[in-house]
């Protein structure tokens, strides 16, 4: 039962949230320009690290906003929480070609 700090609502129990998988999966801006393999990479392949994972969470039983979390997949320790569009903490390996830099914030 994680304790998660929603950026808008504060600390809440994990049961108020829904998990959204890996964060920063950016939709390819020109889908026709990439081949099936690259498109499949965007659709289906995720990094699944043993260690720090940047992922999305939704405060589904609260403010219903999405935000990002850096969580260790082994210890479950959350080391950072940041809003969509904010700079994520730096990460060692940026392997995918569609893990582009942070989105334009509004």
């Amino acid at each position, binding site marked *: 039962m994680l304790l998660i700090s929603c950026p808008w609502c504060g600390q809440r129990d994990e049961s108020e949230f829904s998990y959204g998988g890996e964060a920063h999966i950016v939709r390819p801006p020109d889908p026709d320009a990439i081949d099936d393999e690259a498109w499949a990479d965007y659709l289906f392949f995720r990094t699944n690290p043993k260690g720090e994972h940047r992922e999305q969470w939704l405060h589904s039983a609260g403010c219903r906003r999405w935000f990002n979390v850096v969580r260790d997949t082994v210890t479950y320790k959350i080391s950072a929480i940041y809003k969509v569009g904010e700079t994520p903490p730096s990460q060692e390996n940026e392997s995918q070609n569609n893990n582009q830099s942070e989105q334009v914030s*509004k």
Partner: protein
Amino acid sequence: MSRSASRLAMGGRLKRDKVISFTFDGKKYKGFEGDTIASALLANGVSLIGRSWKYHRPRGIVSDGAEEPSAIFQLEEGAFTIPNVRATQAEIYEGMLIKSTNAWPSVSFDVMSIFGVFSRFLPAGFYYKTFMWPQKFWMAYEHIIRKASGLGESPRLPDPDHYLRTNAHCDVLVVGSGPAGLMAALAAGRSGARVILADEQAEFGGRLLSSVDRIDNQAADDWLSEVVAELTSMPDVRLLKRSTVFGYHDSNFTTIVERLNDHHSIKNRKGAREKVWRLRAKQVILATGAHERPIVFGNNDRPGVMLASAVSSYVNRYAIKLAKRAVLFANNDGAYQTAFDLDAAGVKVAAVVDSRKNEDGQLAIKLNALGIERITNAVVVNVKGRSHVRGVVVKALASDGRSVQGDARAIECDLLAISGGWNPAIHLLAQSGGKAKWNDAKSCFEPDLVVQKQRSVGASNGTFSLAGCLQEGMEAGLESAKLSGFEVSDMNVPTVNSTSEIALEPLWRVPSHHKPWLGPKQFVDPQNDVGVSDIYLAAREGFESIEHVKRYTALGFGTDQGKIGNIVGMAILAEALGKTIPETGTTTFRPNYTPVSFGAIAGPEVGNQLFDPVRKTSVHTWHEENGALFEDVGQWKRPWYFPKSINGRLETLDEAVNRECLATRNSVGIMDASTLGKIEIVGKDACEFLNRIYTNAWKKLGIDCARYGFMLGEDGMVMDDGVTVRLAEDRFFMHTTTGGAAGVLNWMEHWLQTEWPEMEVYLTSVTDHWATAAVVGPNSRRVVSKIVEGIDFAKETFPFMTSREGTIDGLPVRVNRISFSGELAYEVNVAANYGRHVWERLIAAGEEFNITPYGTEAMHVLRAEKGYVIVGQDTDGSVTPIDLGMSWVVSKMKDFIGRRSLSRKDCLRPGRKQLVGLLTVDPSEVLPEGGQIVNAPTNEIPIPMLGHVTSSYHSACLGRSIAMALVKGGLDRMGETVHIALADGRMLPAVIASPVFYDAAGERQNV
């Protein structure tokens, strides 16, 4: 223990003025308030209390706590029956009904004990290797084998109790109220911190409850009373007794089950049976103590063989003279206290058998003074007696300690107390993500890595001296209070006159001149009948991981979860593999620490019909009053059909549906469509947003116009569909399927918030705000125009796929001319609170046209006749719009979610399953939905599968059956015959046809 065991006239912590009668295996006994089932039986001289799981060997009480492997009973009968109750933890109450398990006809004469004779042929995993021939009899063997084993029975009646659940926070949680836990709670409590102290027992004190130690120059009992009184007086300290912390999760979230009523007789119980605390603590102190472990030797499972500390507990705490003659067998100093306790209670201690070679010290002198013989460098190799200990066989150890030598010596006794050392109870530490390390000097696992805001103290930290426990507890309490933000002042550690020392030399199993699988069986895990031979067998067969050995032998299964046998078992495995103990490792600890009732976990949901919400439309009661039967669609109750009375009986489903369909197509029907998802989409970028999430074009949609929208996942598969109406330049009203509404809203929000935050679009769920009555059929216009004001319903002014606003009785209504049946139809939307009123007005207006309410079944038939798909019925997440033959809905001019995937190789390959219609050759046969489709009946195995029937009905309008199906390459096979395999073995022929069976030109809705 034996017939000679009896209650001592004085002493113990019982309420001797409260006599309790109970029944065990049909016989009546008496005990006192404060007795557990185990102590009460022992005091009454009962020793044989059960038969083991597999071999049906006679078993007795072994311990005084959660680690008990053998005294497992069935309580009560009927709705109140509970299986797998540990006699050592259950408090007796007046009228308690207790039965032993796994023995027939009785514990003392058990027919199944014949299994014991064949035990050599029934080792661990025997059922994987035996009873395999002939193969088809395996299920019969399995049935018999299962009946021959197992402990206890599940209740067959609903739970009569109710359970509570509460959320709580505190500064410091202290788990365990032995000396370490008490000091921790005291230290933290005195600082003003909010403290919760939880203990699984009915009294606080832990080991102090059976101790003869002196603390601060008073008896442990008196010191204990003072401490508990002080803790009780503190307003910010909550004391939870009979409360087990059974789970330790992330961020110091723990779950505690508080047993409120199980210690009262059934008729005196009031209120909830149990309460689960869901607790978040700033700091946690684990003072969970340690479990004494046995030594393994031949026939060490006989009734009358008990853990030494348990013997002391039954003597001191429960005032029982356990036997006439006792022997103590130990490898450590601490166990000697048991010999002294027995002697003080008048039991003749025939000998202390010590496996160590050590010289005489204080303990030896004390034994000598009491006239107790001490035999060092020796071990007990076997136990005499079957239904009770009659004596022990002792042999000397060879100089290398790895074998026995010399003559066997028999010592008569009716009690054997054993002690192999102590295992810190590190279960919660491990659950919390912490790790333990093997301490060679102490021969135990100790806390090593801690990842949460937590500390372990006392015996659970490998600190076994009373002085050490008090010290550590105090320090942890002060530290935890400080970290929680409270000021602490110095405290004095109480002084101790403890006689226990715990110097120890490891001895896991007594060496034997027999091979492990010969000679008297040496039990490691008595509850699962796992012996040394089974562990050696597992090692021999290649199971080298302790996790595999556990599953293969069943070591550590059951109610005690290895509390008594796991460490010993692991050490024996290490020996069998020639590895060290750290190399062998232990299995993982998971919640629950001890068994927790299902009711406690379910909490207020036990028996709750509303566990999943039931959603009803505002017209629901009208449907009920008019005889509707309902079906569940998601959480909603939707009218399924409205059977009428004909000839004194109720219509069948088929009769009702046929009537509803014919009435609708011939005149007018009315259906409650309120459950469909409804989402308002507003903002300057709303239109562009629709363009991106729907497959078709939206930019040119006029105001008050409607369009059918098709939604795909990014993988190109059909996700949802529905009609969306444009109400203004920047305002759209989207319909979704009933079951898909929440998912579609979440889907759209996800895209807007994370991918396109620059778009200005606002989404609002309005599903519950509107009631919708669909008025359907050639007379629908006549009905609605009778009562709706402000709308001109003429065909030219109110065309198909448009929307108009008007009023009914002054109530604003929005009418959408859309159709899911192919007939002229209008959906009348009004604020939900007026749903029933508008419905009744429509019914009255339609009476002259025999307006017929219809449900989901008729709705399904009507749309199927037109070949309209239902997402989730005709699609399953693996179907694209092209597969459905709906290329017309896919725009070629713009990008949208899922478009790129439609050109993936796999989406373009020939032979994909495609949606077609099926017409059975015999029109009276209705295909089963889900029916598997093949080309022709054949003996070829496996027979190539082509797809399945997705929707299938009898069509009253067409006078024959119709079906839709997904068939490989179906769109190129029009007119061909395929076969559908039925469960009764028949193969029904059907012709592939267009799924639009009725009014292919679509004329009926254009009137």
